[in-house]
């Protein structure tokens, strides 16, 4: 699971959950895969992200070094920064582990890099 996916994922489909964001990551296996760097996409996607959540997520899996905790002005001109953001967003992948809903504590397993958000009948709103 890439961190860009994690930044967008919520557990709000659960019964009784209001926002269900952000999900806490517990990773047991992490991989880094190479992905083509597209600076335009990275600068376009950064405003959509919750940067704080991204930093905390990266930190929880030990990949936050070099990544600033808060966005500076004119980050889109800083190629070093964009490259680091690209790595954290698209190249670092959580292969095994689980995500935890902050409101209900329900855990969503991650297996082979894919988070399982399927709910059982009692959990659907």
């Amino acid at each position: 699971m890439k961190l860009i996916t994690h930044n967008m994922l919520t557990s709000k489909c659960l019964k009784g959950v209001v926002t269900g964001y952000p999900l806490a990551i517990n990773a047991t296996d992490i991989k880094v895969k190479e992905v083509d760097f597209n600076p335009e996409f990275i600068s376009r996607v950064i405003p959509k992200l919750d940067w704080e959540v991204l930093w905390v997520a990266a930190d929880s899996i030990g990949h936050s070094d070099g990544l600033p905790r808060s966005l500076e002005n004119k980050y889109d001109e800083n190629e070093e920064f964009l490259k680091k953001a690209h790595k954290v967003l698209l190249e670092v992948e959580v292969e095994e582990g689980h995500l935890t809903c902050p409101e209900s504590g329900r855990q969503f397993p991650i297996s082979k890099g894919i988070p399982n958000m399927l709910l059982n009948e009692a959990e659907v709103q």
Partner: protein
Amino acid sequence: MTERCLELLLLPEDSSCLLLDIGCGSGLSGTVLEENGHMWIGMDISSSMLDVAVERDTEGGLVLADMGEGVPFRAGCFDGAVSVSAIQWLFNADKKTHNPVKRLNKFFTTLYSSLSRSARAVFQFYPENEKQLELLTTQAMKAGFYGGVVIDYPNSAKAKKFFLVLMTGGVGPLPQALGTEEPDSLQVKYAKREATKGIRGKPIKNSKDWILEKKERRRKQGKITKPDTKYTGRKRSGRF
């Protein structure tokens, strides 16, 4: 078909967008999105299909999820959504507890919130009959979408393809279907939400049908009601 979906999405030219691929399966449509320079996150209910996508080394994010339970993403995060041959599965009730209408409703309302302002969603699908088409458009409209169904090559049994094009930004013209000359042929359009209140099964308030129904109700309750005549609920001129 994914290319056609992208065409109908009307994304800003030459920009890289974050798209949602609903029912992404083995990532075939996702690969097309990647080739067009976009980043995508896909969701599918089948873990075996998603495993194939992983093997194919797709660059998109993958999530194992059931669209009928809702689209589990943050508000306003996607610039657009595509779906190739997936939403017809919502009509099936695969479990006893599944209610297709509720699932469709859940899907469309959560999708609406996950799309950014003026984003579009394009679904290529195979409807079994008119009823399914109607159910789909009603639920989408209830969720707040505008749009309609674009039918490519409507006169060919083989090439005919249905695309449900949904817009969040407000009423706009539907794109022209392929294989048609006249712009208005065989397109299901809906723009005004008020006009379709009648579809909910109740007559529009203060219409003649509503008046007649109300009088029936009063009679059943035992209240004194004037008999229905040719003047009941007649159109009055402005002087009244």
